[in-house]
């Protein structure tokens, strides 16, 4: 016990000093809250934009404060960027063009919607961090009185070469802080950046995209169908083949039937062995059923739509064809360049019901091939 005698006064001194520090330290009343109804939107969400020419970027900030902030108490808005992005959001330190906006494109009616433009004589500046203790910051000063009812909007536009984006793709955490001398509200946003946010290629392309389509053979004899008889399936060498450049290909098919419904049609009857309803599949696997349809085998890397899949459909089940262009159904597609050509075998299946009239039935199937736009 004796050896602790010296330590006891030291501990008491530390404790008393601590109490005095907290009791006598300057009184600073501060209320911190979270921003509600807020968003931070960038006109471009691509990495490495440097704020020049077509690499210009704009921001719109919307927020609803949880408390009031007064112009007299130096109300301001600050946007802080990640430490790792030093000198990337503020490409050069300098002034930004700032405007209060009463609405903006990202507004979602009934959800987050700007209801008032940020008041005041607004002045904005972008300051670079030092990479160790300070971060890139956009400061908006001269903000007028702010209440906690309205959702305020403010738009920041870069002066040439000032406002940019991080060089790092993915989510970048950005903190928005609304404050005055007494109060502070803040919120953090995950700004997601992509390496390329270009939506559409509009540049002149030297080689035009092409698609080349082959259908073989032109005529498919189904032989003789017997009323109430068995299923007839013909495959042999019926094939679709396609090669495409740039953006893939697709095939669709439609029949003619009697003009209203697709199927094998006997005009002399008239009688239609209908290709189902023009949607889904037609099941002619069991005796007594009637119908006509097609199935396709799937080339490697391409997709045969479910209703027309030779492997997915059981024996005697075929994809149902619609009539005319209005009933065209997608049968096969691939979304990327195809070389060498793909080929798919088509199986035609037909069965005549017991009430089918005797005669020669025909169906005209049009296969439509194209490249994506």
């Amino acid at each position, binding site marked *: 016990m004796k050896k602790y005698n010296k330590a006891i006064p030291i501990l008491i001194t530390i404790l008393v000093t601590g109490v005095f520090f907290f009791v006598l330290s300057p009184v600073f009343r501060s209320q911190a809250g979270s921003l509600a109804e807020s968003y931070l*939107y*960038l*006109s*471009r*969400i*691509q990495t490495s934009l440097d704020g020049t020419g077509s690499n210009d*970027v704009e921001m*719109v900030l919307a927020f609803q404060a949880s408390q009031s902030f007064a112009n007299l108490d130096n109300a301001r808005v600050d946007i802080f960027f990640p430490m790792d992005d030093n000198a990337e959001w503020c490409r050069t330190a300098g002034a930004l063009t700032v405007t209060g906006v009463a609405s*903006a*494109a*990202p507004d979602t009616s009934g959800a987050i919607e700007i209801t008032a433009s940020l008041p005041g004589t607004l002045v904005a500046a972008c300051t670079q961090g030092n990479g160790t203790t300070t971060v890139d910051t956009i400061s908006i000063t001269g903000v007028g009185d702010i209440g906690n009812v309205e959702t305020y909007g403010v738009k920041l536009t870069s002066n040439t070469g000032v406002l940019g984006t991080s060089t790092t793709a*993915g989510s970048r955490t950005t903190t928005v802080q609304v404050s005055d001398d007494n109060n502070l509200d803040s919120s953090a946003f995950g700004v997601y950046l*992509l390496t390329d*946010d*270009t*939506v*559409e*290629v509009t540049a002149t392309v030297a080689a*035009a*995209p*092409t*698609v*080349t*389509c*082959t259908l*073989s*053979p*032109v*005529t*498919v*004899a*189904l*032989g*003789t169908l017997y009323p109430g008889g068995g299923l*007839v399936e013909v495959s*042999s060498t019926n094939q679709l083949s396609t090669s495409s*450049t740039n*953006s893939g290909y*697709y095939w*669709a098919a439609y029949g003619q039937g009697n003009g209203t419904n697709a199927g094998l049609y006997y005009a002399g009857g008239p009688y239609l062995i209908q290709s189902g309803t023009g949607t889904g599949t037609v099941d002619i696997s069991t005796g007594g059923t009637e119908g006509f349809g097609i199935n396709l085998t799937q080339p490697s890397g391409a997709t045969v*739509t479910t209703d027309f899949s030779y492997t997915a459909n059981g024996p005697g089940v075929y994809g149902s064809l619609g009539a005319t*262009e*209005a009933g*065209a*159904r997608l049968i096969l*597609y691939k*979304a*990327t360049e195809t070389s060498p050509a793909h080929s798919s075998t088509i199986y035609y299946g037909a069965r005549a019901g017991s009430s089918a009239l005797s005669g*020669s*039935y*025909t*169906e*005209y*199937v049009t*296969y439509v*091939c*194209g*490249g*994506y*736009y």
Partner: protein
Amino acid sequence: MMKNLKRYSAPWLNKQIVLFLAVFFALFFAFPKQNLFAQTSLNIGTAPASEKLTLQPGEKYEGEIVVWNLSERTTTYDIFVRGFRQIENQPGTAIMFTEEEEARSLYSAAPWVTVSKQKVDLIPNRNEKIFYEINVPEDATKGEYTVIIAFISEDVQQQLGSTAAFTSLSSGTPILVKVGEDFAENAELLQFDTDRDWYEEPNVKFFTRVNNLGDTHITPIGEIVLTNIFDQEVGKIVFNESAQSILRDNSASYETLWDYGSFLSNDNKLILGPIQADLILMYRNFQPGFAPLTATTSFWIIPWKYILLLLLVIITTVVILKMRKRKKDKPPQQLPK
């Protein structure tokens, strides 16, 4: 008389020739007729695959489409100029309107288009140019209009005397014509989901459905970011790599496949258990970042066969170890004295 008769020295040979001829004719007439057409094929190639134009009211545009035929016979194709629509919610596809649909369509540019030919004979292995002209009326209202210059092979009329399917081949060049400036680009995300709730391995199909609410086509692009249970990014997939577009007043379904083939990411992050997928996509030409669409879904990767195998190995090991231990603990039997 005798000199007209051809006789062979061996009489049995006469009988063989007659028999051969009889069999030949029988086979020739009895053989199914469809084989006569088995080698017939249709082929058409088109360039460009599509056109996207921005024109102003009163403006005239002249263009050309090159078509070719790589089959072995000359084929006649009828040329149709009509508006078009998407096929069954598949983005980037085009099927021309029927005459009735054309008459009802508000956004068909077909009445503005004239082509240099109404039909074309495509000689094998030779390019043919079809010239077209678009004259936008002065009073055309702002928005996007569509037209397809389609080629359909003429019907091959054959009498087979039996039930048959005759096929035609159609292809064409869809043209999207924006008239005016400052289009309303607006879209909503209707679905972002996977085809299953759990998978044995990272081979996941994502379904995304986007509805175009604007007055022009949109081409949504973006990324699907995958994170594991430890909130680590384990994968990133490009959404709509082939830039398939959605026409105005249409919705479209996109399929995105993630077939990774490993349970470890490139930077050795674990691809197991619950995986969260975050979709972010953009569709605007102007300031795309102002209107991204986002959604989240999740799924599980459970390699249950491997897990089962591992459990079996563990259980077997434990049992073997216990048995050995029991054997060791057992006192040696006393030999009878």
